[in-house]
């Protein structure tokens, strides 16, 4: 897909600038230019596409679809909606309470709450750009699985409703769609404005991430990386998850590093676990939910998601471990 671009960068770095492809400097500069532009193109394309599709969905609509769905079917649908629906952690409270108003079971709400940040457009665009569509698809697939089963398990906890600290009166009757319609042109305009907005916020992190990645790519020997970050030691996956938690706001800058590390011997399962931990285990979201949920439920929520992510990591390392 980006062969044309690789040829241009080849010509520029190795041809016009005369750098040696085998040298560390040549490799690092080629890597930096090639990866940065490729990721920029994909970020702009995917964020635009997702935010345009989004203008046809909103969480009120999702609530209407999910209302009255049986468990499990509801968990699956909620996880799928999480891919496309706009969601920021600042909306976690109204979403949670709003779903309860519509008498949607808590487990189904959690499936949505796990899936929405996990399958966000920036993470998907970065994965697509760095690892190709296959890994991006695997990530989405297993992300959905964690969301479906995680939400389902939370829903199975006895008396889980009593951990919600704010009393909720169910809305009466059917929910109606109350939003004003936007003309097509307006949707395009707004999606593009949103895309540029997001891009401005993250492009620097991407460049720094790819820059550090380029240095590792060019200068740090493979043996060193696979000795520390890689290998099939049992603790590789938990360490990857622990390191991923505090990186929530910087997913765009962190993912280029994961690409280089996996290129140099970090196992795919550890890399996947790390990326899921970055997006799904968000401390800001936990702090916000603390206002309406009992600490015990939040800890359970984090515990179940962590368990799911660890499992994905181990399964992948086991299947693709190689050595």
């Amino acid at each position, binding site marked *: 897909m980006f062969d044309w671009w690789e040829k241009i960068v080849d010509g520029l770095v190795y041809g016009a600038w005369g750098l040696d492809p085998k040298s560390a400097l040549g490799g690092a500069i080629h890597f930096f230019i090639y990866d940065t532009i490729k990721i920029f193109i994909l970020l702009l394309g995917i964020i635009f596409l997702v935010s345009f599709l989004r203008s046809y969905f909103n969480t*009120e609509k999702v609530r209407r679809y999910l209302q009255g769905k049986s468990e499990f079917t509801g968990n699956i649908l909620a996880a799928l909606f999480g891919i496309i629906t*706009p969601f920021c952690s*600042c909306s976690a409270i109204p979403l949670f*309470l709003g779903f309860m108003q519509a008498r949607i079971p808590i487990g189904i709400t959690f499936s949505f709450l796990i899936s929405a940040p996990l399958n966000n457009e920036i993470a998907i665009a970065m994965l697509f750009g760095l690892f190709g569509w296959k890994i991006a698809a695997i990530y989405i697939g297993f992300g959905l699985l964690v969301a479906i089963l995680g939400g389902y398990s939370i829903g199975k906890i006895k008396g889980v409703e009593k951990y919600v600290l704010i009393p*909720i009166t169910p*809305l009466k009757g059917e929910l109606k769609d*109350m939003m004003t319609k936007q003309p097509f042109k307006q949707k395009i305009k707004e999606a593009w404005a949103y895309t540029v907005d997001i891009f401005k916020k993250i492009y620097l992190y991407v460049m720094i991430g790819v820059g550090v990645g380029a240095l590792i790519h060019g200068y740090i020997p493979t043996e060193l990386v696979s000795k520390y970050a890689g290998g099939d030691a049992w603790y590789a996956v938990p360490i990857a998850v622990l390191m991923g938690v505090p990186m929530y706001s910087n997913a765009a800058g962190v993912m280029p590093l994961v690409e280089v590390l996996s290129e140099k011997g970090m196992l795919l399962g550890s890399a996947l676990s790390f990326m899921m931990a970055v997006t799904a285990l968000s401390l800001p979201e936990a702090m916000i939910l603390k206002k309406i949920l009992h600490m015990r439920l939040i800890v359970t929520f984090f515990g179940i998601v962590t368990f799911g992510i660890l499992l994905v990591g181990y399964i992948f390392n086991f299947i693709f471990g190689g050595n």
Partner: protein
Amino acid sequence: MKIDILGTGCAKCKALFEVAKEALAKSGKFAEINKIEDIVEIMSYGVTSTPALVIDGEVKMSGRVPSVDEVVEIISA
């Protein structure tokens, strides 16, 4: 006319409040603008995402910050 901005105090909610003020000035109409920050009260409007724009008790949009012109159009309608 009465304009309510629903939001628990996040950055986007403040942004919508500013947009609404600007739009009101631009439309040349007269209205009362309120911020509603109490979560229980917000929930009574039936929204699931904030910020939300409410005009005369009716939810016009939620979950995003519209442009000034869009709000002018909604106010004038």
